[in-house]
């Protein structure tokens, strides 16, 4: 019984980080109707930024969070103008192809430079032990930081002028333009914010698990499930969606073979798409 509870708690901890990994994806998707397939690559970029910061520069892992956020933001602005700006408002396939090809280029470059060997960032953070089960410190801190980041993002989107502008553009771009919002700038800002979030989530994942250049794909895939659960463009929804996903993983494992977990996850994905096309946690918005 305690084992099941331990798995559930761990599921929630790791799930919240899945939520963070999806937050950027859902933000970009919701605001500009672009499915950003470079998201996985940006998560990996965050992981490698963490690795370089800790191994080459000797910075302590969590001190790299803010620089990675800022770096991700700048990369995001660049990426927006290179791959996204021209396809906004065009058929969705255009942006899919555009970001997919950038993703291929980035992953190709990464494989050429680092190969697919494993990288590990050792973080010594005491965990909390309960009976025979231990919750690693890295998981606890990652979950706590995720909640803080989601909270900040919420405050930004709902209580600042720029955040409100972002939501206005998401709601109706023409109308936002008519009331004098510089929509292009807002779009690039939202995109950059999404990329920065991907980088930070990659960094937090990097403190918990070893990773390779190819690790991003799995989180991107989970990001889609979380986006569907949580609703488009809704950071709190993404957090809750991520936690739900982690909870499923934690809850299912003690009772059935682990290889069934993806089946359950994607069955849920389809079921939610049919029953709640706007996301379970997005009901209030509509």
């Amino acid at each position: 019984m305690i084992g099941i509870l331990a798995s559930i708690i761990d599921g929630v901890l790791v799930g919240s980080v899945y939520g963070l990994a999806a937050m950027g994806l859902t933000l970009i998707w919701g605001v500009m109707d672009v499915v950003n397939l470079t998201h996985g690559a940006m998560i990996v970029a965050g992981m490698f930024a963490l690795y370089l910061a800790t191994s080459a520069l000797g910075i302590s892992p969590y001190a790299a969070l803010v620089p990675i956020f800022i770096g991700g933001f700048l990369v995001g602005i660049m990426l927006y103008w290179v791959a996204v700006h021209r396809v906004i408002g065009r058929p969705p396939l255009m942006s899919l192809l555009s970001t997919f090809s950038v993703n291929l280029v980035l992953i190709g470059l990464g494989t050429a430079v680092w190969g697919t060997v494993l990288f590990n960032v050792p973080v010594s953070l005491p965990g909390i032990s309960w009976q025979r089960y231990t919750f690693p410190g890295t998981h606890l801190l990652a979950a706590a930081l995720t909640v803080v980041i989601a909270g900040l993002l919420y405050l930004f989107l709902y209580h600042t002028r720029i955040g409100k502008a972002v939501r206005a553009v998401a709601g109706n771009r023409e109308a936002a333009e008519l009331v004098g919002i510089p929509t292009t700038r807002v779009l690039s800002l939202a995109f950059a914010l999404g990329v920065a979030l991907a980088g930070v989530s990659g960094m937090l994942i990097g403190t918990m698990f070893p990773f390779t250049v190819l690790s991003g794909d799995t989180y991107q895939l989970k990001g889609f499930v979380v986006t569907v659960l949580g609703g488009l463009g809704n950071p709190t929804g993404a957090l809750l969606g991520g936690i739900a996903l982690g909870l499923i993983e934690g809850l299912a494992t003690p009772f059935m073979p682990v290889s069934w977990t993806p089946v359950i996850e994607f069955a849920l994905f389809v079921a939610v798409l049919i029953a709640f096309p706007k996301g379970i946690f997005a009901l209030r918005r509509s």
Partner: protein
Amino acid sequence: MKSISLMVAAALVMAMPALAADDNTITIGMTVSQTGALNVEAVAQMQGFELWQDQVNAAGGIKVGDKHYKVHLVSYDDQSQGGRVQQLYTRLIVQDKAQFLFGPYSSGLVGTAAVISEQYGKILLVTGGAEPKTYELGNKYLFQVITSADHYLTGAVDALHSKDPHARLALVYSDDPFSKAVAGAARDQAKEAGFDVVLNEAYPPTQTDFSPIINKIISAKADALMGGGHYADGATMARQLYDQKANLKWVTILVAPDSDKFASLGPSAVGITTPSQWEPQVAYKPDFGPTPAAFTKAFEAKFKVEPDYRAGAAYGGGLILQYALEKAGSLDREKVAAALNATDLTIMLGHIKFATDPQHHGLQIAHEMVLAQWQKKNGKLERQVVWPLNAKTADLIYPLH
């Protein structure tokens, strides 16, 4: 003008395969996963082949009958994808006129390559695919140079049995053909040894977080764990076992701990055992080719890294083909296949012999695994051979906790 340049181009194109099929050259084709998930392992394997090619050619080539042939390796990047393997092996045979083939890395890709090689009746030597099913399909020209998956954990089971005959064992492995074959055979061997198999669980190859699985291992009160699959998952499992203080007495993980990069896990790596096809320290006395130590030295001189088992197996595969060609005294497929069937030889890789009965033709039946353990020596993490006892370079550490 245009027609002349076209003719020149056409002549060039036609000249290319002719160059490859030079009279004094043996063309050997293969694919290498230079990109994609298998790139680390596949590139190590390629280096083994390259060293063999260099040494053979520097020594004047392979003596076949009374003629000497230089070796010409032709390889393409298969991107770690079965679809590419299928296209490229066809290309190697049809366009590049490869006379013999080496396999790609991983059981999955080997299975695909074997379909093509058998279809065209080409000899294929497999040095990086342990899954045994491929050899039950009646293939006639397929030869496995390494120990097959059903004996991967035999040594680990024996070693654990010598320490605790009633261990409570958890088997947790990736849901892929190779790992499943390994774990399936290990379960039977463990039961035979008298272990209590308290958990038998496959996880999807995309598994990112092992916490719930590790909690399951703890809940099952297991004191030994065997499993893993490939690189990322095995290393993540090792790290989380440490982070979550699973305190197991014994941990054997497939594949991942066999790379030197595993040392970057630091304290999580200590004590982890891994079955290995080969380690540089092994003390085999070869009937043919260099000693393990001489091979290791030459490899380090060329690539500036210590060879892992994939490189050793590939080099051994080259030696076996060379031996068979010399024995056959001919490049004729049937004669070379007959020489391979008759091979019963110790090389730097170990003892090599192929099954010749039609039900398992080409399956490796003589080669044995060693068990290596990550141990701390003078503050540095190193892999030591701990099993079998006559090959050991250090004592087995048991229990870990």
